[in-house]
């Protein structure tokens, strides 16, 4: 019995470390694809790792008016995001840790991280921190209802809100591509773009004061704190990508009972799909420009509408309407 527990623990530890290690790579792929599409050489794939290493070595400058919250927030944010990422089934579903929380708890963990980041942004008492925090919270109020509708659709389809359960359901019948699931896929993509501050919502590469949202909050961070914040945002990106993969393209993922061999296949499939979706994200970011802040309600509104439509169609198809 203990041997089995040991294996489970090992698998869970492996999953968490894989997620952590691959995150910067995914971001590297996105930047590389964007650069090549713009016919630029682009930074090397491992550039994100080098940045993190550089930041770790640099000394951290903290503003006088900053409080203990400012210095402790990065560690908490990184931990919350890392645990959330661990919850999402990557190469195998049904790992030891995933019964601890379901999708609602996952969204809430990310909400906690976001709130702490917003508070840290306002701690130093500069106007840019305020801009970042207020816009971040506004975007959150737009994204959360859509996320809730997506969760509702999954619950209606799979009958459970535990990610492992949903993944098993989709593994069992991978090609049940119903219209409602397609719609909620689009909704989840839009929500992911909003949450990760990607192009149409916010430009990750910019430092133009009036447009940035995520960058404004972390403006005052430097050194090891900035490294942690960067790592957390990379982890969050990988989390959403693996969430998309797990829910909507689960082929190759090892079921809970598969042995070592199953996991290996699952791992390979997962890494391939992850880097593929990162590339797709790069293509998407090149093909669209950043929107003005107050056009975001309409953009994220699309996600809400699709989410609601998904549920109505789910009712229809499941004949619940009787």
């Amino acid at each position, binding site marked *: 019995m203990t041997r089995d527990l040991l294996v489970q623990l090992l698998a869970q530890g492996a999953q968490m470390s894989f997620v952590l290690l691959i995150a910067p790579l995914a971001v590297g792929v996105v930047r590389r694809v964007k650069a090549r599409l713009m016919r630029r050489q682009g930074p090397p794939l491992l550039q994100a790792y080098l940045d993190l290493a550089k930041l770790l070595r640099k000394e951290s400058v903290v503003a006088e008016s900053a409080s203990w919250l400012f210095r402790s927030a990065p560690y908490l944010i990184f931990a919350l995001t890392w645990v959330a990422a661990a919850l999402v089934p990557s190469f195998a579903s049904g790992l030891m840790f995933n019964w601890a929380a379901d999708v609602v708890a996952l969204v809430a963990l990310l909400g906690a991280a976001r709130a702490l980041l917003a508070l840290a942004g*306002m701690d130093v008492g500069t106007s840019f921190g305020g801009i970042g925090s207020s816009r971040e919270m506004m975007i959150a109020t737009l994204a959360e209802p859509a996320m809730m*509708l997506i969760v509702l659709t999954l619950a209606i389809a799979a009958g459970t809100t535990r990610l492992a359960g949903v993944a098993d359901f989709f593994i069992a019948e991978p090609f049940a591509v119903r219209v409602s699931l397609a719609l909620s896929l689009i909704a989840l993509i839009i929500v992911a773009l909003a949450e990760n501050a990607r192009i149409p919502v916010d430009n990750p590469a910019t430092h133009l004061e009036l447009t940035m949202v995520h960058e404004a909050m972390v403006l005052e961070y430097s050194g090891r704190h900035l490294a942690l914040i960067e790592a957390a945002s990379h982890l969050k990106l990988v989390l959403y990508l693996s969430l998309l993969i797990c829910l909507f393209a689960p082929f190759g993922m090892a079921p809970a009972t598969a042995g070592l061999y199953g996991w290996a296949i699952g791992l390979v499939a997962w890494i391939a799909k992850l880097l593929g979706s990162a590339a797709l994200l790069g293509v998407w970011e090149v093909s669209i420009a950043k929107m003005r802040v107050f056009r975001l309600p309409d953009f994220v509104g699309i996600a809400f509408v699709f989410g609601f439509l998904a549920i109505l169609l789910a009712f229809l198809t499941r004949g*619940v309407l009787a």
Partner: protein
Amino acid sequence: MSGVALGALAVAAFLAALTRGPALALVYPVSALAAITLGVVDLRVLLTGADVAARLPIGLPGIGLHLRLDSLSAFFGIVINGGVLAASVYGMGFDRAKELTPRVEPLFPLFAAAMNLVVIADDAYAFLFSWELMSLASWALVVARHTDPESRRAAHLYLVMAAIGTAALLFAFGGLAGPAGGYAFDTVRAHPPQPMVAALVLVAALIGCGSKGGLIPLHAWLPLAHPAAPSHVSALMSGVMTKVAIYGFVRIAFDLLGPPVWWWALPPIILGAMTAVLGLLYAVLDRDLKRVLAYSTIENVGVIFVALGLALAFSANGQPEGAAVAMAAALLHVLNHSWFKSLLFLGAGAVLHATGRRDLDGLGGLIHRMPRTAAFFLVGALAISALPPLNGFVSEWLLFQAVIAAPALPQAALHFASPAIGAMLALAAALAAACFVRVYGTAFLGRPRSAEAAGAHEVPLAQQLAMGGLALLCILGGLMGSVLAVALAPVLDQLVGGGLPGTDSGPTLFSLVAFDPARSVYDAPIIALFVAIASLTTLVVVHRLSERRTRRGPAWDCGFPDPSPATQYTASSFAQPLRRVYGAVAFTARETVEMPAPGDTRPARFSVVVVDHLWRAFYAAPGRAVLGLSERLNVLQFLTIRRYLVLMFAALIILLSIAAVMT
């Protein structure tokens, strides 16, 4: 019977504390002691499930005054006495000479006693007697700062709304008791009213308890009255009195009205969801710290009414386990809200005590000057925003599980409502997070925006103790959510006949299970443990790998740091995006920027117009109508004697012609 005796002791202690003069300082220790005694009695009844009943010969002739402490009352008793204990401990922090006045101190125990009495009342007369006494005592407390016309107007609106609520409850109990006047709850349970009357009773109860709790559109008095009272009293009013209102609705809808009909669920759900969203939109746009907290109370009451509505829907469709989840969500939210709202109001009181200012735009940087209050306020803020490891998330999670299970309900109206309700609740959760990030950010973080904020000092130890205790409860409540849910089993069984799956069914002892483990589990301790381990390991690893030196320097601020604190984001600027997105819809919020002509050195003017339609439609309009009508009627006071004789003659002739025609 010991329970009742203890109860009587506590009430006597309360009343004994009504003395004047130097004994004023005695009020808070006595109230704390009484609260502990009553809390213990409630706990014993809740755990053992043995009801304690008594019948006093006073009250209505022939019926007497019935008192009963069953598990529902015991649960709400614990909520009340927890709040009273916290407020009393906070009260002990007031220094004897300056801050004790005969206008506040003697009324505090009376208010607490009235609330306890409401919960143990077992007949209509005792219920309304103590309900109205509670309103009266809190009115007197709200009008304690009587020199300020604002608090006088708030007190007036408050007691008039309370009277309207009591009138509605009078109708509800009138319908329940029937013409024969069977006011005791046992006789009411013996023969529930017919459907038509039951519907009227439910609507009346919703108006009566909704107005006291703050449901839209009967909410407008709450954000005026609660902040006007002294802080520890507004903590009691917001954290605890609104829960007594919810107790009233639960007692009538679930206990006295007999088996529910499915459409009974619609009004609470719709009103609750609207209250949740609108309450927070008010909160996000308001600039007064205590008023923001009052608006957020309205939001939480809305969320609780949605949960109660869902419980009604599930039990009407014969699904006790769904009803149990929804009711558990409601009751846990009652408990959690009473903890973190009291904590936040006590925190606001501490800020008011330290800086003398309540407007958010005048505070800032308090985390450096009031570190412990800031820490406790942070715990309260994160808890009320329903963020994971803390207790707010436990009830929110249960509620979402109930909403997610709602599509399984047969009636079309309910099961189309569930996605809309889910979306509105999620919106409310996000708005709550935004609102409290704004409050905490502007009040505690950043740099002080006024001299008072700069000169703030930490509050006395007793007040820190009160806040600390509540913060601890919020953390424990978050981790031990499943233990609390199981403790609720007798209450759930009494109300909806079902119960949550036991703790043994979940993977670990502390995992909270909604329907069954395969469907959804939330294991707070494990998550908290993993977050702690993760952050510690990163701390150790990062410190070993990286430079440990940290240098303090001026804020970067994109290269041109500005020393004046005015450049910081204030409460209204933080709310500007939300006002643009949501305000235009709910309050026709319009921002006008008046730029001077080119070459003109006049500064540009920025003005925001926020129109509160609910206030205009439900309060301003009726008020004007009553005054207008009374003006027109006033003519009748100044007629000549002959015209009065004409009135008398007309009355005589009308009656005579009626008599002539009738028989």
